[in-house]
């Protein structure tokens, strides 16, 4: 127990600051404020690794979303085209068939 008290007393004992302490504090206070960063420095901040990840994500998204949109529009246009060709082909075929049937009827008469 007495050892603990002794240890605490030693640890918490009063110590005088170094002789140059006041000088060093005053020197720090008198230092000029940091200058406003230039645009180049700001750009450099943006390009730091953690932000570069976000730029990469943005670039990927800006490529993937348009590509997916083109894919969707293309597939939709293809389906529409196939429907249009089917309708057109069917109507042409029906007209042809009727013309041929009429011809056959004429042959029988």
């Amino acid at each position: 127990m007495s050892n603990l008290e002794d240890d605490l007393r030693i640890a918490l004992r009063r110590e005088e600051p170094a002789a140059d302490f006041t000088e060093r504090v005053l020197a720090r206070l008198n230092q000029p404020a940091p200058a406003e960063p230039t645009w180049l420095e700001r750009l450099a901040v943006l390009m730091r690794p953690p932000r570069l990840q976000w730029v990469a994500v943005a670039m990927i998204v800006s490529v993937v979303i348009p590509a997916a949109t083109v894919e969707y529009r293309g597939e939709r246009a293809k389906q529409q085209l196939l429907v249009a060709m089917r309708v057109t082909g069917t109507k042409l075929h029906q007209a042809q068939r009727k013309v041929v049937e009429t011809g056959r009827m004429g042959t029988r008469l």
Partner: protein
Amino acid sequence: MKILGGLALFVLIGTAGYGQVLDLKGLEKLAAKASDVTDVTLDGSLLRLAAKFLSADDPDQAKVKKLVAELKGVYVKTYEFAHEGEYSESDIASIRSQLGAPGWSRIVGVKSKKDRDNTEIYLKTGGAEPGGLAIVCTNPKELVVVNIVGKIDLDELSELGDLGVPKIDIEKAKPAKPADKKDND
């Protein structure tokens, strides 16, 4: 002879030149009355995009790809109605009026009294070459209008078997005598 003429035109029509786009906006009001509507509007840029998505490995899609290579537009409107009389001739009057303009020629007209179908096929002729295709099919419960702009081979179009159009051999079914029941010119 009219039938023979029509058939000959059907068989001999090769390519058509660039035609005019029909104004089909007058039909849009029918969509509210129709039970089933198909509306396809593909201009040149969408056709080119669609063609890129057609598979060259699929024989029918390859045929379509070849067909659309020189097209400038495909416009199809079909309306199916639950009851007769939900559209009238006045609804398609503007289209008939456009097809009556110089340059358009009706190459086939088939009227069936039995089915009450009326199918008309028009070609757009511009200068030396014909251009564009229009089909107008009317039925008491159905209206179909097709407008294809650009070069098209009708024979190839009618051969799209896998798209629901079985091929028909016209040469083997040549008529010897025309019938007078149907109107074919």
